[in-house]
């Protein structure tokens, strides 16, 4: 039986500086399917290419792994040779050694990382026994021109729209009953202070009615087999218990007797067990929360069904798993706010008036639980002194996350500013370590908060927060004057760390995507290929690969769409260019 051949490139000494290629070779040689490991100083040179061609013919290799330096050079240099030897995409795979090692500090760690990645890739190769079944379908260079987008936040929406507008089919999968993600929860966005809902809902509506987009809400991807150009995705559609005929009239909500903590409003409000997360939800079909609904035991309740005029409620709905073929996958699973345990020294979870940034967004939002009026959760009073604490569990390897959460400096400045707009006689304080305002117009925005809105910035961390006489006392420091600071505040807002959405684990498992120790997916290369995932044909967008603000997420989404569309490019490249050029 033909086995796997591995070609290892040294990129003219560049790679052996970083990785122990001998160890890599000998470790891979141990793999049962590997028949040969062939090193070469410069595989993409003519001599190197000739060596590959010879080996493919001479050794009768059934599958090939090329471990080299270049992330997309593979396409140009190596694929033609592979195709010539009748090795399809399922039988060849490229490992970018520079990428697989770029995050590690020393040679040993880099080598180990590279070996692990290579072994994972070897498992994806299909040896010749499978090959026969695959070949006949390889019409149209074997690419299924349909994309799967996982996650319906701004990143997923934008990627879906761009791909669909280029004429390709998209399946957009979202766990929640509506698309919109975290962005739809936000009040206004920095630095332009646009209303978040106002700018997002048109995009949501567009994706919802796009003829090329199939929107699957309350659904999850539970399996993904195959490879670049031809994946088979298993999608579990969880029962919504409400049929598409729902007209969102809301009669059921009035009838429902069950009150549930409203997650969309970050726990600051109640909702019913049958609900629409927010009025502009897409699809605008209600959903039934099966954890809390009484009607699933029909004897207990059934009130919503009784009042539903179109008869849209079906308590007997069952989960359905669908298999869909796609050619590429875009992962846009987003983020959560840090909530592992309590942030005990700040009394988060203990005091009602210590909230996180997302909760404050809901307090500011015109459609939020207070209609945009700033009130503190404990007693509804308007807070006159508000302390914002940044870097809560960010930049904190000891008690939280070592990384910077990227967006908090800006949203905190925005929070403080909006708070001052709502409560002109109030005072906002911000504890920070470094103000990270690196985007377009960001620096000016923070300056505005300080100068025009009189937000007091204090450079230092906060050690402790506690309640005394109905006020929230904050013990911090101003390292610039070298003094300790005590503020008796009415409300404290914590910019807690951004962590991957809790669905990342199942997505990682299903897709085989590499993730860092925090659960953020790693791009093949932060600089050269920022949207490429570690598995060919899977692309990464937004916060699933690290804290990212909205414009960057949108740009990445479009970037990922470009990769997908290039893959789906309908017309094969023309051999001869036909430039319409004329000497003037």
């Amino acid at each position: 039986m033909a086995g796997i051949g591995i070609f290892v490139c040294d990129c003219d000494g560049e790679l052996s500086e970083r990785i122990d290629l001998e160890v890599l070779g000998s470790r891979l040689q141990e793999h049962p399917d590997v028949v040969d490991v062939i090193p070469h100083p410069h595989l993409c040179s003519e001599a190197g290419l000739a060596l590959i061609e010879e080996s493919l013919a001479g050794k009768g290799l059934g599958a090939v792994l090329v471990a080299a330096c270049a992330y997309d050079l593979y396409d140009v240099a190596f694929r033609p040779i592979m195709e010539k030897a009748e090795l399809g995409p399922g039988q060849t795979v490229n490992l970018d050694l520079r990428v697989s090692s770029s995050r590690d500090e020393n040679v040993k760690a880099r080598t180990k990382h590279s070996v692990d990645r290579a072994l994972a890739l070897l498992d994806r190769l299909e040896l010749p026994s499978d090959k026969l079944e695959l070949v006949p379908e390889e019409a149209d260079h074997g690419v299924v021109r349909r994309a799967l987008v996982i996650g319906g936040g701004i990143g997923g929406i934008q990627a879906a729209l761009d791909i669909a507008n280029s004429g390709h089919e998209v399946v957009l999968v979202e766990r929640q009953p509506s698309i919109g993600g975290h962005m739809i929860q936000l009040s206004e966005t920095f630095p332009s202070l646009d209303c978040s809902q106002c700018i997002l809902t048109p995009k949501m509506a567009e994706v919802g009615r796009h003829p090329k987009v199939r929107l699957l809400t309350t659904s999850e991807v539970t399996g993904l087999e195959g490879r670049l150009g031809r994946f088979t995705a298993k999608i579990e559609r969880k029962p919504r218990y409400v049929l598409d005929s729902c007209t969102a009239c809301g009669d059921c909500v009035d009838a429902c007797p069950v009150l549930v903590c409203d997650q969309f409003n970050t726990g600051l409000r109640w909702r019913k067990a049958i609900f629409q997360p927010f009025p502009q939800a897409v699809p605008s079909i209600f959903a039934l929360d099966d954890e809390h609904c009484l009607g699933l035991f029909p004897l207990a309740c059934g009130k919503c069904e009784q009042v539903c005029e179109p008869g849209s409620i079906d308590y007997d709905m069952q989960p359905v798993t669908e298999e869909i073929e796609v050619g590429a996958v875009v992962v846009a699973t987003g983020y959560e706010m840090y909530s592992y345990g309590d942030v005990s020294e700040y009394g988060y979870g203990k005091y009602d008036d210590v909230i996180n940034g997302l909760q404050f967004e809901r307090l500011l939002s015109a459609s939020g639980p207070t209609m945009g009026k700033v009130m503190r959760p404990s007693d509804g009073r308007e807070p006159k002194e508000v302390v914002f604490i940044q870097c809560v569990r960010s930049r904190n390897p000891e008690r939280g996350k070592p990384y910077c959460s990227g967006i908090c400096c800006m949203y905190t400045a925005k929070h403080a500013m909006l708070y001052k707009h709502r409560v002109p006689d109030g005072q906002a304080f911000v504890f920070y370590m470094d103000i990270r305002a690196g985007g377009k117009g960001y620096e000016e925005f923070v300056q505005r908060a300080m100068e025009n809105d009189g937000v007091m910035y204090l450079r230092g961390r906060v050690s402790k927060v506690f309640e005394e006489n109905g006020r929230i006392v904050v013990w911090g420091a101003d390292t610039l004057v070298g003094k300790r600071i005590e503020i008796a505040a009415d409300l404290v807002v914590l910019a807690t760390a951004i962590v991957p959405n809790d669905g990342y684990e199942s997505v990682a498992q299903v897709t085989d995507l590499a993730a860092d120790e925090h659960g953020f997916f790693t791009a093949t290369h932060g600089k050269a290929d920022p949207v490429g995932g570690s598995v060919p044909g899977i692309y990464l967008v937004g916060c699933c690969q690290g804290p990212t603000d909205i414009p960057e997420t949108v740009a990445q989404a479009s970037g990922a769409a470009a990769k997908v569309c290039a893959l789906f490019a309908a017309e094969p490249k023309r051999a001869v260019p036909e430039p319409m050029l004329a000497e003037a």
Partner: protein
Amino acid sequence: MARIGLFVCRCGRNIAGTVDVAEVAGILAEHPGVVHAEEYTYMCSDPGQLKVAQTIADQHLTGVVVAACSPQLHERTFRIACEKGGLNPYMCEMANIREHCSWVHPEEPATTEKAIELTRVAVEKVKHSRPLTPIRIPVNRRVLVIGAGIAGIQVALDAARGGYDVVLVEREAYVGGHMAQLSATFPEMERSRFLLRPKLAQLLSHDNVWLLTNSEVVELTGFVGNFKATIKTRPSTDAEAGLDLADEVFPRGVERQRQESTVEVEVGAVVPAIGYDVYPLESIPEYGSGSIPNVLTSLQFEQLLRTSEGGELRRPSDGAVPREVVFIQCVRSRDREHGMPYCSRICCMYTAKQAMLYKQRVPDGQAYVFYIDIRAQGKDDEEFIRRAAEQYGVLYLRGRVSRIFPQDGKVVVWGADTLSGMNVEIPADAVVLALAMTPAHGALDVARLLGVGADDHGFLTEAHPKLRPVETSTAGIFLAGACQAPRDIGSCVAHASGAASKVLELFSARHLEREPEIAHIDEGICAGCFDCREVCPSRAIEVKEIRDRRGELLDTVATVNDGLCQGCGLCVATCRSGAADLEGYTDSQLFSQIEALSSRWTSTTSAEKPGGGHGG
């Protein structure tokens, strides 16, 4: 004679709960021109849509009004239904009696009255509607990319991989832009040129890419899908041949023009990726205006790092190894008084990288960094900075530097450490300045040439900072890279792919279909004053010469370019002779609506009560 069908939606109880839907249908049934009026629970449902199509056929309707929710939700739905029934879709109007009425008013007779008014106004409008057809514009599926730095290369690459022709124009003799001059990238610490090389190799292997170095775009005319660019190429000198990174990766070498030439290229989209420059050191007197030896710009230091790879780093003035190097960040950034008010974003990270690479070259050296805030918000950036401080012993000092001057063969730096509250003096062997990133020289000329916006500094402006970051307000022109704002390589690449995605989207069909709701100028009425041309923000007004059969010029009038007009209506408001009109919102449509409203007010209420108070 108009035969209008009216369909009133109950929307479950959403409308019917506050508005007497039967009365709306009943009263409007009597309205002149209305031949059919009915109410239904959910007009948007399949049976509802079928009713519309069926009634059009049965009753030979000439217009349809659906009184339901916001047109944003379902206008498209009902227009498609009309088309199915054989009616021109633009003969359908919606009256928004939900968001504008039932949802915002209590259940009372006045609410129903308002619904009736809104519906009546829509009926009057439809009476004056004209059938319209969507505009089809041919798309030339070739893209012009201006600038062959990393962003331009990425756009070109993605577009070429999408199967389209690319014209890549570079002003300099070399490709690769600033990235080709850098030592290594943060936080990966990989040689910059090694990252650039495979991209370039791949790009040049595409047959549908045409690279023009030493070239500039000198004129651009036309509109989305149909631009015409004039490109001027300088002759290249012998000195330039063989030095380019492109020559390194492309065995055949890059073809170079030996004489000056000008070509015209027709393209469907344009992507400026013209990059950045740095603030001139000559304009910084307190740091010596470039006259102090061993005060280097960060780009000069990159050069030193790149050329000293594998060996010791020596300063250019006397070849000595600098034992103490001071890096100063935010030089003319975040400085609205003397320089640029914005943050240059990438300096924190590249300074840390430079300090680390310096320590690798000179292990017993000491690096100092003056900063205000350490901005390390990218992936792995925070950890990278901590490595610089902890493993490489780089001393970070929070404060600005007030003055640099030469003394006893040293460069003396006077700065502050605001954390200890002390003033600090460092006699250094070299000083590296992280100068503010500015728009590339000539950026404003490019902005003018392309008709895209630029901010006060000359950075090109996007259509929307949040949700349309790679588009401009001009259709068919997209932005990539640092010409929009200071930006690191990873972000440039992502944005470049984003811009490419917009190009691929535009090129996905041979024709671009646009809504026909744009301006139209009646050539018979136009007086040729061209005031409209002055106000048009989309450059859509063109000059048309009307000639007789013999070719004699009869008249010069304004005409609207269908491809460019965005339908804003400014020309209509400006036109003194009434020649301009906006399809779908014609004067006759609007006036008939106003008349419908005002007639109601003059007939039912006293004259002194103006029309705004009740009906809205």
